[in-house]
């Protein structure tokens, strides 16, 4: 299990970041999103290869309206 945006998510063992995005119906090729794993930015280029350990904390963010 990993945590995505604070919620527990069951995944296959050691999924890549890209796997997780696809699993959650988030287009990994869409512009405007960014990912942090365990409080460090994971750049887009590593999404297909970077695997996640059990218990990893993943944050996926996008731009929203804000002052």
């Amino acid at each position, binding site marked *: 299990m990993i945590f995505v*945006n*604070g919620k527990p998510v069951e995944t296959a063992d050691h999924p890549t970041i890209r796997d997780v995005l696809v699993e*959650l*119906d*988030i287009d990994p090729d869409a*512009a*405007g*999103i*960014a*990912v*942090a794993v365990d*409080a*460090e*930015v994971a*750049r*887009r280029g590593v999404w297909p290869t970077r695997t996640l350990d059990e218990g990893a904390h993943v*944050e*996926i*963010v*996008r*731009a*929203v*309206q*804000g*002052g």
Partner: protein
Amino acid sequence: MTVQPHVAGRSASPALQIAGRTFGSRLLLGTGGFTRMETLGDAIEASRTELVTVAMRRVDTSAEGSLLDVIRARGVDVLPNTAGCFTARDAVLTAQLAREALGTEWVKLEVIGDERTLLPDAPELLVAAEQLVDEGFVVLPYTTDDPVLARRLEDIGCAAVMPLGSPIGSGQGIANPANLTLIIEAAGVPVILDAGVGTASDAALAMELGCDAVLCASAISRATDPVAMAHAIRHAIVAGVLARGAGRIPRRTHARASSPLEGMAEFAE
């Protein structure tokens, strides 16, 4: 014939420059608070802004917004903020995520110290600003109206300083014009009034005092007619710049007649 307004002092430049980039508009627009995307788009158009702020939040797969599409369709750039961050660490991470998501190194740095007032946390702000400048960001920090803090932020290498007029969303205008003037007099980087604007006259006053630009969010987005207010504030900023260049009369305690005292007609009883 085109009449070039004579504009004195720090506003002599006909255009706003931040970090080597030139802007035709001195109004930055916050996108927060608009209830409809269409209104946001129309307000961007009416304001003539070239730079609009966005916040970074968790992806909500159920509601994919078209915010970036609306912004880009209007041909303006995004300035991500770090709103909601209470620590330097969170603000730096948010800026890094924004750079990754949006492909911009510009960030409006906010590190908030208190939920009720949303006032900046000065020590955390300095730590975050220093780290982001070191990482190559163009840092525009939301700061208090403290001239010393503004100077420190400039010394660190911030590309502008963004002092508040009054608390975010309060609409109280410029609470301390004396402090704002001290910041403006000392600053070697653009001074952008951020927060507190309630209506057009507040924005005009900011420019008359010598600010280089104004950022408005709630004043426009939460106005009864946001598009009309965007239009009004755009013109208020132009009026303020022109008025500063024109040179206002000094304030006097007593009246000074503008009509001649000589040559008055004398009427028979």
